[in-house]
C-alpha cells in the first residue's frame, strides 16, 4: 500500500489530530443550530437529531459491512449529519433526513474509501440528491417564529418569482427572521462559529472571503436594473451563502491545497452561485456551485501546485 500523498516541503506539524479538528468544527456549528431551533421551533431540533443519528448509523453500518476500521466517533459523520440538517427546511418529514444522511455517507463518502478520500462534500451530495428526488418537501419553508407552519418562500425564492420583497430588513436577514433552511438563516450565529474557526486557524480566510466577495461583486454588477445597481448586501445575507462559504466550501478534503488554488476555488464558487441565483432555474445555487468546484478541485490542484524547491 503506497498510498502516501507527497507534497514539497515545508511540512508543518501542528500537534492536532483529525478528530480534534472535526469536533472543533462541530462545536463551531452549534450556535447556528441553536439559533435555528430558536427560530423554527422544536421540529428543527428533531430534524437535526435525526440527521446526525442516521449519519452515525450509516457510517457504522457501512464500515462494518466493508470490514474497515470503525471510526464513527472521529466527528466527521456528525459534521455531515449536522450540515445536511442545516440545509433542510425545518418541517420536512423525518424520513427525509434519514435517507439524506445515508446517501451522504454512502455515496458521498464511503464509496470513495471513507474519511479524507471523498471528492465531494458529503452533506451537499445528500442535499442535492434530496432536492432532485423530493423537491416538494425541499422547497416548502415555514415562516420563522410562527409555529403554525405556514408555508413561506425564502427571500431568494420570492425574488426569483418576481415578487417584491417587503418587510425584510438587512437586520432581519442578519438575525434570521426569514424563511429558509434550519442552519442558514441566522447569519450572526454562523459568524460567531466562523470567527472561532478562523481565529483558531482551523479554516483559512481565502476560500470564504473570495467566495463571498465574488458573489457580492457579481450581484452588485448584474442583479439590479441596469449595471452596477444590484442589492449585493441582500444577496450576501440571504440564502445559504454564509453557511456554505465558511463551513462547506472550506472542507479540507474537497478544496484545493494551495493559497492560489483556494482563491481560484472561492472565485469559482462565487461566480457559479451568483450565476445560478440570477439566471438559473433554482433560487439558490450555493450547493451546486460548491459541488461543481469540488469536482474541479483536482484540476485546480494540478495547475496550482507549489513548485518543488529548486525545480522549474
Amino acid at each position, binding site marked *: 500500500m503506497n498510498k502516501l500523498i507527497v507534497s514539497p516541503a515545508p511540512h508543518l506539524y501542528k500537534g492536532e489530530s483529525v478528530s480534534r479538528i472535526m469536533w472543533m468544527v462541530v462545536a463551531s456549528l452549534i450556535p447556528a443550530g441553536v439559533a435555528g431551533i430558536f427560530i423554527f421551533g422544536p421540529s428543527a431540533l428533531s430534524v437535526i437529531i435525526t440527521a446526525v443519528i442516521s449519519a452515525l448509523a450509516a457510517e457504522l453500518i457501512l464500515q462494518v459491512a466493508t470490514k474497515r476500521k470503525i471510526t464513527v466517533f472521529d466527528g466527521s459523520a456528525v459534521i455531515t449529519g449536522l450540515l445536511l440538517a442545516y440545509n433542510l427546511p425545518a418541517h420536512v418529514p423525518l424520513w427525509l433526513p434519514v435517507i439524506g444522511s445515508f446517501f451522504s455517507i454512502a*455515496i458521498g463518502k464511503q464509496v470513495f474509501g471513507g474519511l479524507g478520500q471523498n471528492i465531494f462534500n458529503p452533506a451537499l451530495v445528500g442535499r442535492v*440528491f434530496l432536492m*432532485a*428526488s*423530493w*423537491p416538494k418537501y425541499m422547497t416548502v419553508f415555514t415562516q420563522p417564529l410562527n409555529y403554525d407552519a405556514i408555508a413561506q418562500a425564502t427571500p431568494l425564492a420570492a425574488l426569483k418569482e418576481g415578487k417584491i420583497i417587503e418587510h425584510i430588513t438587512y437586520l432581519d436577514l442578519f438575525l434570521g427572521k426569514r424563511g429558509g433552511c434550519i442552519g442558514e438563516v441566522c447569519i450572526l450565529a454562523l459568524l460567531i462559529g466562523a470567527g472561532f474557526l478562523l481565529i483558531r486557524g482551523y479554516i483559512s480566510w481565502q476560500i470564504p472571503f473570495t467566495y463571498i466577495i465574488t458573489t457580492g461583486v457579481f450581484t452588485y454588477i448584474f442583479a439590479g436594473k441596469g449595471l452596477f445597481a444590484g442589492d449585493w448586501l441582500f444577496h450576501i445575507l440571504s440564502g445559504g451563502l454564509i453557511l456554505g462559504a465558511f463551513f462547506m466550501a472550506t472542507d479540507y478534503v474537497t478544496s484545493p491545497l494551495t493559497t492560489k488554488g483556494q482563491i481560484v476555488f472561492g472565485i469559482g464558487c462565487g461566480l457559479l452561485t451568483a450565476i445560478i441565483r440570477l439566471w438559473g432555474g433554482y433560487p439558490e445555487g450555493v450547493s451546486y456551485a460548491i459541488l461543481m468546484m469540488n469536482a474541479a478541485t483536482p484540476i485546480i490542484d494540478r495547475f496550482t501546485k507549489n513548485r518543488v524547491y529548486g525545480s522549474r
Partner: protein
Amino acid sequence: MKKLLSEFFKGIIKENPTFVLALGLCPTLAVSVSVINGIGMGVAATFVLLGSNMIIALIKNFIPARIRIPCYIVVIATFVTIAELAMKAYSPILDRALGIYVPLIVVNCIVLGRAEAYACKNSLVNSFMDGLGMGVGFTLALILISGIREFLGAGTILGHTVVKGFEPVFVMGMPSGALLLIGLLLGFFNLAKRRN
C-alpha cells in the same frame, strides 16, 4: 443442439452485454426511464443484432478484410433504418420516446462487437443463436434497469401503480439516477463475481 443452446444462453448471464461486457451502455441509460421504452429499445436492438449477425455470417467470405468494418456498418445501418421506419410507422409514440437513440443503434458497441468478434467467424445458425442470446440478454438487462428506475422514479411498473403511498424518488427518472443505478449495479455484480 446443445452447442446452439449454450450459444444462446451465454449472452444472457455469462457474457451479458450490459453487466459483464459493459457494452452499449449509452442507450441502456438513456431510454430506461420506463419499462415500455426499455422493451422497445431491447426489441429494436435484438432485431438489428439478429439481422446483421445473419447477413454478416452469410457474406463473410466475400468481404475483403481491410474494409470489413465499413461493410459491417453498412449492413448494420440498413437494419437500423428498417427498424427506424417500422417503429415510425407502427408505434410513433415509442419512436418519439426513444428519439435519437434509435438511429444510434448503429454505433451500439454490442452490434458491431458481435459482428467483429463472432459473426465473421461462425456459421449462419450459430451467429443467429449468438445474436438472439445477446439481444435477449440486452433486453433483460434493459428490463431490469428500467424496471428499477420506473418503480423508484415514478412508483409504477408498466404504468401501473404498485405500492400505494410510495413517494417516488424523482431523481431515478433523471440522467443522474440512471448513472448512479448503473454504477451501483456494476459494483454489485463485481461483488457477486468475487464471492463466487
